[in-house]
């Protein structure tokens, strides 16, 4: 139960931030960071615990975002059920892509490429079909009322996305402590060995894909409500797929807090780079690239892995003394 306590503590500390920080810029930065952390947590369920590296999580982010927007704008449905429908449809897209790829036995780089292709196909479709607003995109009407899931203050938006992140942390925690999680990790470590021990690997991967897609879709739904605009490049573009996989890899794949920590570091560095070098285009991508190279080179298990290694390193001498003395 130690990690459950940590989750509560982390969320409580983060929840207190708007009480201290009033700056809209800072809150905006934190909202976007949490949004990326949520998308990353979705990726982490499938990629971190299940070892299935998707390069196309934008497929779920975009589906969530578009569903939330289109249901409101074109069908006059309230934002709250539209938000839920976005998550559900994102999960369904995950189920379809999962069924197609896992049944075909795609693994490793083949799986990564096919997921990337799905996201690209959706991006192209969204940029031409009328229902998504084609190249123009879809604008949601500004209407700052809680009934339509738009908040007056940034702090309220912040608490809303924080609540979603909290749920995603609890989901990751529950996965770690369940049979499903043990099976998912077994699939990551050695698929044939898992099969021999009675694991229906296709079903386990499919389940992970659906949960993963639902979480990432939720971040897309939130994006629509926060920015009130979505187009095909934002929704299904490679940038979101990259951020969703970058944050957990940098923070620590297959850990509860990896995506949150990774999002803070990645977004923070991006922000620092902006201040230092002005708004040079593509600068944040260069920063991401450098951080990724450093992490993969020196901390393949991410920052959380680095912390654990350090902890073990510092706890060793005391044991040695105990043995010698």
């Amino acid at each position, binding site marked *: 139960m130690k990690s459950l306590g940590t989750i509560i503590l982390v969320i409580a500390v983060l929840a207190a931030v708007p009480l201290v920080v009033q700056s809209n810029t800072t809150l905006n930065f934190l909202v976007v960071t949490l949004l990326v952390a949520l998308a990353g947590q979705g990726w982490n369920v499938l990629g971190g615990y299940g070892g299935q590296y998707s390069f196309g999580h934008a497929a779920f982010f975009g589906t969530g975002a578009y569903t939330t927007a289109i249901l409101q704008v074109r069908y006059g449905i309230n934002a709250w059920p539209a938000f839920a429908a976005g998550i559900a449809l994102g999960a369904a897209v995950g189920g379809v892509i999962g069924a197609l790829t896992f049944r075909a036995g795609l693994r490793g780089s083949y799986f990564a490429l096919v997921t990337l292709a799905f996201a690209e196909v959706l991006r192209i479709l969204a940029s031409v079909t009328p229902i998504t607003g084609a190249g123009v995109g879809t604008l949601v009407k500004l209407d700052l009322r809680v009934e339509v899931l738009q908040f007056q203050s940034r702090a309220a938006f912040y608490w809303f996305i924080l609540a979603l992140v909290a749920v995603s942390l609890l989901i990751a925690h529950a996965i770690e402590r369940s049979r499903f999680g*043990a099976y998912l990790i077994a699939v990551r470590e050695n698929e044939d*060995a898992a099969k021999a021990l009675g694991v*229906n690997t296709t079903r386990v991967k499919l389940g992970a894909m659906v949960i993963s897609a639902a979480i990432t879709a939720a971040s897309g739904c939130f994006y629509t409500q926060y920015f009130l605009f979505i187009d095909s490049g934002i929704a299904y573009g490679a940038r979101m797929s990259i951020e969703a996989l970058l944050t957990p890899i940098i923070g620590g794949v297959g850990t509860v807090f990896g995506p949150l920590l990774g999002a803070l570091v990645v977004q923070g560095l991006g922000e620092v780079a902006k201040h230092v070098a002005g708004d040079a285009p593509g600068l944040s991508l260069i920063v991401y690239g450098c951080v990724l190279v450093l992490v993969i080179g020196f901390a393949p298990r991410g920052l959380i892995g680095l912390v654990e290694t350090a902890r073990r390193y510092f706890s060793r001498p005391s044991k040695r003394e105990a043995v010698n003395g």
Partner: protein
Amino acid sequence: MAEPLLSVERVSCRFGGLLAVNGASLNAEPGCITGLIGPNGAGKTTLFSIISGFQKPTDGLVRYRGEIVTGLPPHELARRGVARTFQIVQPFAGLSVRENILVGAHLRHPKRGDALAAADKVGRELGLGDMLDRPADTLTVAGRKRLELAKALATEPQLLLLDEVLAGLNPSEIRDMVPVIRALCDRGITILMIEHVMQAVMSLSRHMFVLAEGSIIAQGAPSEVASDRRVIEAYLGHGAARKLGVVS
């Protein structure tokens, strides 16, 4: 003679131009150890893969507890009580010994607490009690072989397929391992084992099958098989039996 727990009936398996298994039939009697021996490349591991569902046979039937199970996926066979070990051990390398065994234990124990208790019990039985918290990839060869066995055993199988669990062990490690395998049999688990360590497999098995070039060329009690002319020639080459003075 009791109804066999497992019977393989005229199974063939072809990989392109290579007929790896050619109409092989064998039985495993419940509650005892059956040995499967044969020279390298005879098709033993392919036959195991077919029995455990990893490979579909080109032809023939596999019957388990009287039911035809040919072509069922491995996880379904595991659920019905067929467990296997791999000749090249397949640990979950990044996990601890306990977590490795836990995956197997979860098959009969959905709750994490029960599964952990079951995993610890199996680990201790196989002499891994002191290593439960160690990462699996830090184990010695002997430790890995034991872990391979522990994972399979944690699924609480009725039929255990052991693919060379003694290979790569030194004589003293083999001496330690033989009673472990015998104890499993005493608990009522039916064992079918592929083994190259003749002394061990001869002393453990009640009945043996010899596979050569994909076909069963001999079967019977270990002593009969060992003196069979065809078996000696399969291992040592044509004419070897005569030179050794075996008459048949």
